[in-house]
């Protein structure tokens, strides 16, 4: 059946295109009339998927908005314990990674196989650097006992140590609310990191396929759609960075 269906598809596709010499790519699926249709469908599907992702993170942003308004002082104090240099460095890393991905799309469209692989590898490496820095940051939170749960410790906010950046003394009940900040910090950056890990996994798969030359003959939809996903993950971070790290960049005022 499949052969017949494919022949019919190709026939119909050629008629619709108006040029009979048109040769279809091997990646074309039998139920599409034309490659254009397949490409547009995949791209629309990807955008819709990103829309669901926005709604997914939207719930978290909603929670953040509410509690930041309610417990502003606690959120400021907790935010001040995050390292702005590390956060800013990671922002730079992620933007560069996104730029490499954009170059990878360009390389795929230009059918430059070598460059495509290089850019994809660079994208992956920068993604891994981001995860490494994130690991350092998380590790510090565990050491300071700023991870929500049984062992959460507020002493640092009630009686700040001298080396803490101009930290104010918070009353105990306010200091307790810092736990909410760290809950949201871990859930939001954790969900973002989970998306990064999935993305890096996909990148490895894409690199293997690019190496085989799958995307060097005009079939670039997977690269394009993955790039959309990767940029989306970037954008989430672009919102997370100011919301979590830069609540009060002039501490002690």
């Amino acid at each position, binding site marked *: 059946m499949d052969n017949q269906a494919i022949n019919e598809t190709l026939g119909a596709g050629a008629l619709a295109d108006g040029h009979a010499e048109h040769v279809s790519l091997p990646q074309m699926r039998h139920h599409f009339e034309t490659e254009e249709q397949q490409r547009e469908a995949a791209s629309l599907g990807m955008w819709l998927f990103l829309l*669901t992702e926005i709604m*997914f993170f939207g719930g978290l942003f909603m929670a953040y908005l509410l509690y930041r308004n309610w417990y502003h002082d606690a959120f400021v104090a907790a935010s001040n314990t995050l390292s702005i240099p590390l956060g800013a460095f990671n922002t730079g890393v992620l933007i560069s990674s996104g730029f490499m991905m954009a170059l990878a799309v360009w390389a795929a469209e230009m059918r430059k196989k070598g460059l495509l692989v290089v850019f994809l590898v660079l994208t992956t490496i920068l993604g891994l650097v981001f995860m490494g820095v994130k690991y350092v940051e998380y590790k510090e939170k565990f050491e300071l006992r700023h991870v929500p749960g049984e062992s959460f410790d507020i002493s640092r906010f009630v009686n700040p140590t001298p080396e803490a950046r101009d930290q104010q003394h918070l009353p105990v009940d306010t200091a307790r609310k810092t736990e909410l900040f760290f809950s949201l910090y871990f859930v939001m950056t954790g969900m973002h990191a989970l998306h990064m890990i999935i993305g890096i996994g996909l990148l490895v798969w894409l690199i293997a396929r690019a190496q085989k030359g799958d995307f060097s003959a005009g079939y670039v939809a997977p690269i394009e759609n993955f790039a959309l996903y990767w940029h989306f993950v970037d954008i989430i971070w672009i919102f997370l960075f100011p919301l979590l790290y830069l609540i009060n960049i002039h501490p002690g005022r």
Partner: protein
Amino acid sequence: MSTIVSLPDQRTATLPKKSYLNNEQGLLSWLLTGDHKRIAILYLISITVFFFIGGAMAGLIRLELLTPQGDLMSSDTYNKLFTMHGVVMVFLFLVPSVPATLGNFFIPMMIGARDLAFPRINLLSWYLYTIAGILMLTTMVLGGVDTGWTFTTPLSTHYVNTHVVTTGLMVFVAGFSSVFTGLNFIVTIHRMRAPGMTWFRMPLFVWAHYAASILMVLGTPVLAITIVLVALERTIGIGVFDPTRGGDPLLFQHLFWFYSHPAVYIMILPGMGVISEVISTFSRKRVFGYSAVAFSSVAIAVFGFFVWAHHMYIMGLSNYSAMVFSLLTMLVAVPSAIKIFNWTATLYKGSITFETPMLYVFGFIGMFTIGGLTGVFLGTMGTDIHLTETYFIVAHFHFVMVGGMLMAFLAGIHFWWPKMTGRMYPEGLSKIAAVITFVGFILTFMPQFVLGYLGMPRRYHAYPPEFQILNVLSTAGATVLGVGYMLPLLYLGWSLKYGAIAGDNPWQATGLEWQTASPPPTENFAKTPVVDYEAYDYERLEEMQKREVTTVG
């Protein structure tokens, strides 16, 4: 009574040699299929299983409520039963019921496509559904869950020891299944339409699914993150919904109902699509006010996102926001009413015949109207405070979900059964089943309106003796209803082998799905159809048939 059914001569008629059913053989060819029609059948089987599991639990609930004392089961067991009844029916039956079966099967056919845009994602969403189903069964075997289907915090996060996380995971996975179905439909409807199939030539079934898909895609992820937060709260205690740590349980309810209110439209809109198709076919008329019905689906989808807080009037919502949400709730009644009025106007001066799907549709219109109007009682702040958390609300949403959606589902299953299987169901028996379902339903849920108005609260396994007579009526009705649901299972199964051969178009319906063989070939159409006519054009159909007769004869 006249009929429009025209079957081929049974002595000579045969099923088509090649169809999607026998194209490939073996279990693997089903489990690894990319064919939307086969996936629809897989879904049909799995949702039927869960419907009867959920139904059995409903039966036990009604049995317990036969007497005022809690004598059949303990209150804990009762709590688990109504919770799992709700979870199974909402997430494993109602949400996927029409879209994943009839929608999956017929949307590509109605718009003249060979398949959905992403066949493999379609299969993936069935597997996700199956995993969710297995998780649900696991929960049941391990001892169940008793939070109510709403997982209200802090009950679900702090006070119960049942399997909230497993059930939460199940809802999460089922949610992804639904997201992928919705995404697939939207892309298919945008990108896969046959030449000439413009937006306003599409059957209203497709419009309804488009609107429902928007809700699936936008609403479900919010539920997903909410469930993740509940699970994290329960496992490591992150405190986002925990008042002792500064969290707000109301935030949970806002996030939960932001999905779960649109979810009721995810459930009902595809059913409304079925109604449009059936009512037009059996009154031989174009649906009155086609574009009004099409846009009212979209309007329901849009308004549906702005009414969620009407579930929370007594939960400590400010009076002003309650007023706004009450007003917005009234607005949703408008597009729903547009649909009901337009369907009624479609019947006016139509050539109405009373085949089984049409009987179910009449049931739908009556019961949806009652369910919808009682929804206005509940949307009004003053009456809601008296009626909420009573049997009135139970009766209200069962009128909409069971009386409305299940009737629509059965209407659709009967209407398209000949197309899906190539065989007719037994007409006489199915008419009896439709009437039994209707009577049983009214008997089950009408008394519950009275019970609720008199103040019987929901979710208790015992009640004061003065409520017994109405509860006995309701339980008796549930028994009748059970018979009404068992009958189709039996005779539809019977018809797979012994039903009359249906032919391509037994109802003389106009949709593209009727212009191919029954059951359809794997590629749906021998060649891509070109559409140069409006939906529901019965005159054109008659004309075509006349021409055929003259050329053959």
